[in-house]
């Protein structure tokens, strides 16, 4: 039974981390799939969202859940401004220009946050009902991790339904698969992209807030976790909600397991794993047909 609870606690911890990865990365996957835009600044929106959530809770005293909603709205609105004014100019630019622009944006945001808020880590004050341990019968585990797993699953289910059942979801799927075809069917790609971008950034903001408790929140956040977000997206396949979901969970659990059972290996395994997966399936585990 020792071994059983051991593995169970590892699964719970890994799933919780994976859920955060999923919530942050899903928007990145869809926008990259739609526009082929290499957006390395996605994590910066997650960071900004995290700051909005943590700081409004601290200074305005609003609750955790309302703060999450506020973070979503604020960052979605901010990202629309960025998208219309800046990103839109680069849709047809080369990959390299997109990489540069978004790296520049990351630097800019890191510096801006450092100047305005400060370089130190911001601590999220969890409401009391999320603190401590929860007895699951077989195993006692961190309440907040269980909360993340529940919330992450609900979000994944909601997104999946939205993708499969709504008109806009259908449009997005069509546009990811064949953009020119979708355009010729009268889908307004620019508008679709703007909305997806805003939604994805808003989700990232929620992810930034939800993750602050255990992956921290400081100005360097967009750079530190960039590689993880990109690995999730690349492995999950561009523009695939379910792909990103499973990729995030797999990476979350594997990363947790490797750190717990083979901490001497450092980050070596996760990089090696990403390389092997990408060589095996360059379009991602759940990616579409190679075109």
């Amino acid at each position, binding site marked *: 039974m020792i071994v059983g609870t051991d593995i169970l606690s*590892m699964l719970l911890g890994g799933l919780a*981390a994976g859920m955060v990865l999923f919530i942050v990365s899903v928007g990145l996957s869809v926008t990259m799939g739609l526009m082929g835009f290499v957006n390395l600044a996605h994590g910066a929106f997650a960071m900004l969202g995290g700051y909005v959530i943590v700081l409004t809770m601290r200074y305005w005293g609003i609750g955790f859940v309302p703060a999450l909603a506020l973070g979503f709205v604020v960052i979605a609105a901010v990202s629309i401004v960025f998208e219309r004014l800046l990103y839109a100019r680069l849709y047809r630019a080369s990959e390299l220009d997109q990489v540069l622009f978004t790296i520049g944006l990351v630097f800019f945001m890191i510096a801006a946050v450092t100047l305005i808020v400060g370089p130190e880590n911001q*601590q999220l004050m969890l409401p009391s009902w999320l603190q401590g341990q929860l007895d699951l019968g077989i195993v006692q585990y961190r309440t907040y991790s269980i909360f993340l797993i529940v919330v992450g699953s609900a979000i994944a289910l909601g997104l999946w339904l939205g993708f499969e059942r709504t008109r806009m979801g259908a449009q997005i799927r069509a546009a990811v698969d064949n953009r020119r075809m979708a355009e010729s069917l009268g889908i307004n790609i620019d508008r679709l992209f703007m909305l997806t971008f805003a939604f994805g950034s808003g989700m990232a903001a929620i992810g930034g807030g939800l993750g602050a408790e255990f992956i921290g929140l400081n100005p360097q956040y967009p750079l530190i976790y960039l590689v993880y977000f990109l690995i999730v997206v690349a492995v999950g396949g561009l523009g695939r909600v379910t792909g990103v979901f499973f990729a995030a969970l797999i990476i979350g659990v594997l990363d947790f397991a490797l750190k717990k059972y083979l*901490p001497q290996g450092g980050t070596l395994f996760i990089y090696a794993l990403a390389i092997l997966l990408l060589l095996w399936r360059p379009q991602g585990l759940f990616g579409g047909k190679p075109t």
Partner: protein
Amino acid sequence: MIGKFILASALATVACLAQAQEVRIGVNLPYTGIGAELAQQIDRGMEQYLKLNPVKGYKITIVKRDVKDPSGGNARNVIQELLTQDKVDVLAGWVYSPNAIAAAPVVNAGKKLAVIMNAGTAHITQMSNYYVRTSFSMWHAGYTMGEAAAKNLKAKTAVVGFTDFPPGKDMLASFRRAFEASGGKVLDEIPMGSAGAVPDFTPFFQRAKDKKPDVFFVFVPAGDHSSAVVRTYGALGMRAAGIKLIGPGDITQDNKLQGMGSAAVGLVTMHHYHADLTNAENQRFVASWKKDYGADSTPDFMAVGGYDGMAAIAHAIRATKGKVDAEEALTALRGWKFASPRGPILIDPETRDIVMNQYLSEVIMKNGRLFQNTIATFENVKDACKALKIPPCK
């Protein structure tokens, strides 16, 4: 890769006499980037020393240069330029050990007194004969804590978690050696990610919890790492499981302590300094600090490294009548004693490293704020790495 930054051309000058002899001190610290906070502590420590103990009869000019990061490369260029271009008489600074390692050949070629005010990897003082250290070696706290954990805290088993970089490995080695020599047993050693970013500590702590040790000895860099450690320790219910969290003073760094909240109560640490020490020197130091930088600001062990470093330089200046010839200055500093805010200190005549007290403290809640309560004092502790000649120490 970034070459030189004459960062703050702010030349802090303390002029006493118009025609006083000038002594130029070249300070290398990470004034920008993640180390900026540390640089500020050391800077203020130096400033406080000069304010509380003016060096009369000499004009002291401080040339500050930014080394940005622990890459070694910047520090090396900065120190080369301090020597050849700014013609400094004394070198000082060094927050990061790799910078002291990388700069050693330049320091040797430059033949100037070089005072290390923070970097704590044990063997770096042996890389140049011009290095004098007024901060600490990782072995000071680690080794003493190893003994104290077995003897004072009566622990039989321990798990060690450490950030996977040289100071962390030093800390692991020193703690394990002393703890096992005192009859304890280290059940597991867990490398917990790199110093560059605060990791999610959950998997590492989960592993430690599964081993059910008496104490969990953790070393992480001061600052954001330590807040996350305390939080994860609380969230995983390790205290309820009967596991005591202990470590060197880095995890209860003074200027971060109040931000940790009540989760920090009960932490037991070993260090050479905390701001709640009750000696007269420290009370004068802390009072002056709070007056100058605000009541919320607290000096920490880095500040005292800067304070004592400047004290050493001042002693060298007086002893050499302002010439600060390296050989003469070193002779003067070997065996030099000083009443520091951290208690009495001595520069070991053989190793040029510091000899000082170590304090075992427990965090308690007192008058609504977290307070470090000294439980036991270990006097005149030497760097055990060099005393025991454990490689790479000689």
